[in-house]
């Protein structure tokens, strides 16, 4: 009977639970879900990671290619992050070009992680050749906070990338790649994003599931590395008080430290 009730009156179903200060999945409102990080799971990519936040699963693969730098930044390479929400991750998505949500998420992730890699270190030869890092984040299970999982996956995958050494012959205009001499990419910062949902305009749910997200009246995403804040994103919806915002930020900071430690362990276990 509970399932029928939930289907017919999802909001009331949640209210009943939250009146007891507990969520339907057994968490308290401020509790985040377990995160698991798995580095370098795909051998056909140059760097990869699988991240799970509760049921939410995102796999990130990085393919490095060689390309010609932009004319206005001849010494820089490229980082091309894209989030994909394929129809297999949720019944909400149809096959075809990226949905609006996927585009917004791509934008968000690109901005949140823009400071991680100095594009100049991806340059190989001035105005001739540079690395292009195609970073594809594919959501395999859409159960809320996909953007958080994307940021963590990207951060982990980037740390597993090993680029081969490239010599560029200016005269013949041909590069030579030495596959057995590889170096890692220098990653400068480690942002971790944590999302919140506002339910019934007053209760804040940390790390909401897809269902909680769809019932929420507002959302908030905080990107931090544990010390400094990279971005706070609250796209409209119901209002928050200053105290609530501060609470969210402190939860996000705490989680960022925890997640970054997990990333460090996961990446470390790969290098060995």
């Amino acid at each position, binding site marked *: 009977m509970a399932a029928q009730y939930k289907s017919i009156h999802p909001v009331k179903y949640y209210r009943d639970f939250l009146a007891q200060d507990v969520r339907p999945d057994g968490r308290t409102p401020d509790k985040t879900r377990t995160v698991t990080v798995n580095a370098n799971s795909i051998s*056909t990519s140059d760097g990869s990671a699988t991240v799970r936040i509760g049921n939410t*699963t995102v796999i990130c693969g990085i393919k490095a*290619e060689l390309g010609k730098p932009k004319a206005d930044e001849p010494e820089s390479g*490229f980082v091309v992050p894209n989030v994909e929400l394929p129809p*297999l*991750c949720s019944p909400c998505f149809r096959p075809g070009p990226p949905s609006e949500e996927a585009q917004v998420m791509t934008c968000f992730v690109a901005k949140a992680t823009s400071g991680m890699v100095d594009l100049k270190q991806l340059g190989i030869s001035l105005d001739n050749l540079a690395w292009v890092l195609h970073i*594809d984040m594919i959501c395999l*299970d859409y159960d809320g906070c996909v953007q958080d999982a994307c940021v963590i996956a990207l951060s982990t995958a980037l740390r597993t990338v090993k680029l081969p050494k490239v010599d560029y012959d200016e005269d013949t205009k041909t590069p030579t*790649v030495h596959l057995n001499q590889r170096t890692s990419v220098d990653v400068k910062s480690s942002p971790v994003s944590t999302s919140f949902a506002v339910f019934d305009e007053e209760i804040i749910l940390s790390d909401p599931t897809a269902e909680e997200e769809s019932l929420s009246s507002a959302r908030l995403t905080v990107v931090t590395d544990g010390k400094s804040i990279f971005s706070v994103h609250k796209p409209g919806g119901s209002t928050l008080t200053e105290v609530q915002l501060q609470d969210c930020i402190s939860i996000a900071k705490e989680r960022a430290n925890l997640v970054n430690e997990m990333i460090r362990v996961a990446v470390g276990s790969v290098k060995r």
Partner: protein
Amino acid sequence: MPSDNRRIQGPEVSSPYCLFQSGNKNVDVHSGRSEVLSSRKDSRKFMEHRKIYLKTGVVSQAKGSAYVEFDNTKVICSVFDPREIPNRIEYSQHGELFCVFKFAPFSCLTRRAHQQDAQEKELSLCLKRALEPAVCRHEFPNFQVDIYVMVLENDGGSLAAAITCAGLALADAHVPMYDLVTAASLGVTGDKLLMDPVEEEESLCQNPNKENQNHGLITVALMGAHTQVTQMWQTGSMTAACVSDALTHLVQICEETYPIAQRCLVKSVVDTISKKAQ
């Protein structure tokens, strides 16, 4: 290349770095042949299938889902509830299967585009044809069941893995089926048959050799309970005797895979029952 303003774009032209590797340039495809004829790189026997790992219920949002590993080949599939067939005017007696087969951009040696290409379209159709005979389509007339397959890593045999995976996901979604479907692939080069070829062996088998001997790939999907082949897909050229020989081997391997799929499904049923009992 048409510009795609819905994604972040890199430079217009970029090429995989493997093309410019130092030393052994223009590797001869035929050079690997003599090696393969004696033994396989992963020290398998010629008729030995790679280790198979199966898991159901991996995608929480889907009605049914499955994940299959043939060693490095990794495939995930999810199946959703039947929905009305869009843009359809007349009533159709049988339900339809709608299959989308996609390689992840990072799943192959060279990067894949985001859009579905011709090969992926072809594989989607193969998948649909292989599954259709196994599903009781008369039980959901005028509806379609969506089946989405994503190859996360391709190391040969991705179609076979996809069929096995999708068959399992359909059963996990409680779509009525006559039988489970399992599949396997086999490569032929010269007089050698290679069961479940890896990517490297696959490309070797696809290239005709100098003497124009038998070469090609065969993928067979089988309903184990009744030993009925739902689909056989052969490329390349080979003698009829070779095809029938290959088929015998493939059917045998599919029958060996069948109990693994059954066990996996039984486990998921037992798990849901015991979870409900709590």
